[in-house]
């Protein structure tokens, strides 16, 4: 495939791996432990597993799979609220594909659909608007979720609904912001990540400047990375190079997509319709201040939480679930007590088993590299 295969060239990968190994071996010897690099974004986690990148890397560098899978971190209580809206007799719930499977405390949207709720998969929030236009007697709700990547398209949809005078459309808003989340992870106890792969698509919207504090205040290097396998290897090499030079700055490997100042039109749309929530609950991480957005007063008429009464009950994550520790890199997925036993992709207990972008689901489905096999006491049980 033109413009794709170029980023999957095994010969170039070999060269990068050699350089990564040289740098990481040196750094690991200094530290007396492997170098820990966190990829913040779920899209990166997915690519890392899909291309088998993790087992190409030397043992001197370990990847910590961060909190950037928006489907995974959605708390159970919010899923319950969404299901409650979907089950309203006059509602049509619309959402992206992988959000349909996220389990609530009673059921997922997919299960609600099988019981008769009108739940439809869309590829763009604008499709939800189309459904609203052709069903004037129904209230069409878009289950909006994701980081700054998907926020602009939701914002533009609300603006379009306003411009076209569509009143039977509303948003169940679960959009979250990346910066407070990274900060919360950095401040968490026992956090020992040496550097970051910065999220590519989020940065396409917000630009590279919002990460400056990570280099300045926390002295950790950040390389904003693309999603092709060579992007990821090159970015890892760039992080290691900074560490080797005892440097900490924000670099942009994904410059073909990410402008330093982000996308002004997208940011304007976001700030026109959204405002920060005082706090937002994350599955696995708990409540994080200013980490979520909601529609502002001007667009309150499009807020599904105001149009429908929702239970809004906070539901705690199951006690045995150790997603928070995995997200922060304190333990590896297979070191969790319930991984592969009570918690599998068919019956996810924790956030990270929910979507293929979650670290645990990715290990479960794509894992099985030699390192996992050696370290993983559960591996044998799984194969059986």
């Amino acid at each position, binding site marked *: *495939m033109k413009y*794709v295969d170029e980023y*999957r060239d*095994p010969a170039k*990968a*070999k060269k990068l791996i050699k350089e990564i190994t040289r740098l990481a071996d040196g750094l690991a010897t200094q530290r007396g432990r492997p170098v820990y690099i966190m990829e913040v974004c779920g*899209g990166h986690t*997915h690519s890392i*597993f*899909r*291309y*088998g*990148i*993790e*087992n*190409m890397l030397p043992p001197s560098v370990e990847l910590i799979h961060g909190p950037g899978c*928006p*489907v995974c971190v959605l708390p159970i209580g919010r899923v319950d609220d969404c299901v409650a809206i979907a089950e309203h007799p006059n509602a049509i719930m619309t959402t*992206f*594909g*992988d*959000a*349909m*499977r996220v389990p609530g405390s009673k059921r997922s949207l*997919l299960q609600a659909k099988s019981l008769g709720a009108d739940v439809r*998969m*869309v*590829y763009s929030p604008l*499709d939800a608007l189309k459904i609203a236009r052709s069903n004037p007697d129904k209230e069409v709700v878009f289950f909006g*979720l*994701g*980081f700054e*990547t*998907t926020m602009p398209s939701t914002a533009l949809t609300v603006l379009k609904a306003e411009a076209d005078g569509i009143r039977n459309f509303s948003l169940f808003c679960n959009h979250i912001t990346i910066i407070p989340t990274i900060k919360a992870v950095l401040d968490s106890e026992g956090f020992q990540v040496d550097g970051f792969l910065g999220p590519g*698509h989020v940065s396409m919207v917000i630009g590279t400047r919002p990460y400056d504090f990570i280099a300045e205040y926390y002295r950790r290097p950040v390389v904003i990375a693309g999603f092709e*396998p*060579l992007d990821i290897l090159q970015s890892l090499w760039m992080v290691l190079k900074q560490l080797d030079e005892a440097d900490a700055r924000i670099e942009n490997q994904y410059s073909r997509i990410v402008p330093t100042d982000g996308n002004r039109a997208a940011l304007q749309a976001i700030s026109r319709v959204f405002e920060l929530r005082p706090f937002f609950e994350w599955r696995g991480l708990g409540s994080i201040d200013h980490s979520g957005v909601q529609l502002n007063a001007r667009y309150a008429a499009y807020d599904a939480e105001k149009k429908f009464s929702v239970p809004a009950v906070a539901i705690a994550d199951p006690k045995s679930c150790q997603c928070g520790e995995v997200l922060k890199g304190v333990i590896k997925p297979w070191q969790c007590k319930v991984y592969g036993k009570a918690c599998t*992709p*068919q019956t996810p207990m924790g956030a990270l088993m929910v*979507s*293929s*972008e979650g670290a645990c689901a990715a290990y*479960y*489905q*794509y*894992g*099985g*590299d030699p390192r996992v096999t050696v370290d993983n006491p559960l591996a044998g049980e799984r*194969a059986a």
Partner: protein
Amino acid sequence: MNASQENTLATLSGDALEDTRIRRSKMQSPLITLAHGGGGKAMRELIDDVFIAAFSNPTLNTLEDQARVPLTELARFGDRLAMTTDSYVVDPIFFPGGDIGKLAVCGTVNDLAVGGATPLYLTCAVIIEEGMQVETLRRIVGSMAETARAAGVSIVTGDTKIVGRGSCDKIFINTAGVGVIRQDHQLGANLARPGDRILVNGYLGDHGATILNARGEMHLSSPIQSDCAALHGLISTLLAAAPGTRFIRDATRGGIASVLNEIAEASACAIEIHEASTPIRQEVKGFCEILGLDPLYLANEGKLAAVVPEGEAEAALQALRGHPLGREAADIGAVLTGGRAGRVHMQTVFGGRRIVDMLIGEQLPRIC
């Protein structure tokens, strides 16, 4: 009916039949209504004018409640009867490269053929949602008849039911198939052995990508067509060239990934495939890139995976490539010596290695 009667019937064409055994009724209504399932005149019209007219053959035309097949006839083809059944529900019912009718014949023919059977007879049971245009039904049934004729199988008995609006999605078709397996064919998912090669007969994922695209939600224009085809001819070519073939399976729902997992599990072996040698069209790859899908899990309707002993693999590959339905056949991997039983791995183009697991639920497009 004795043999001479049957021969006589077989030589009669449609119009002549009307004078002998069957009095054809013509459909009066342009729409299918609940009346066409009521057991009366309207139903008779539907059966005669749409189904019998299209499928016409001596066994069916007797209109008995069961098809009667002489055992001596069956015994000519081998020593074991093969039976299978499959129901077909697809949205949309017409798609580039085929329709639900063609699918219903090819799918069941293939389910027989992959066991080494010669497919001989099919049944056809349809459940139709009221309100369907008779012309639409004729197109589907015509497609079934044409596909069956090309595959050399007869549709010998059937059933029609009409249900109210909303009780089914336009039309559901069930076909059962009967075939006979030759004495020397012994195929099984549990027979894969270390060193065996895994062959496929061409590009994977075409059907799945076509159906997703034909639903029109993505607004992508694409030249991808369903690969829907009856594979029994190809399979008999393969078995002639590689008589030691261990196992054949058509890679329908769940795609090639699911078939490989079934083999690895049943034979308690590990399988490794190579992304670089796995044939997937550029268009299908691009489609999957956009939607975040994995082509290894996309359905096929004219693709098979064959497990062939190493020594016969080259001959098998050449035989497949010599057949019109196997031009792009490829050797995509092997059964490993050692490795964890039940596991399927893929060497990625990029030089990594990953597990190819069974699909969990349905593949859903990713959020971003």
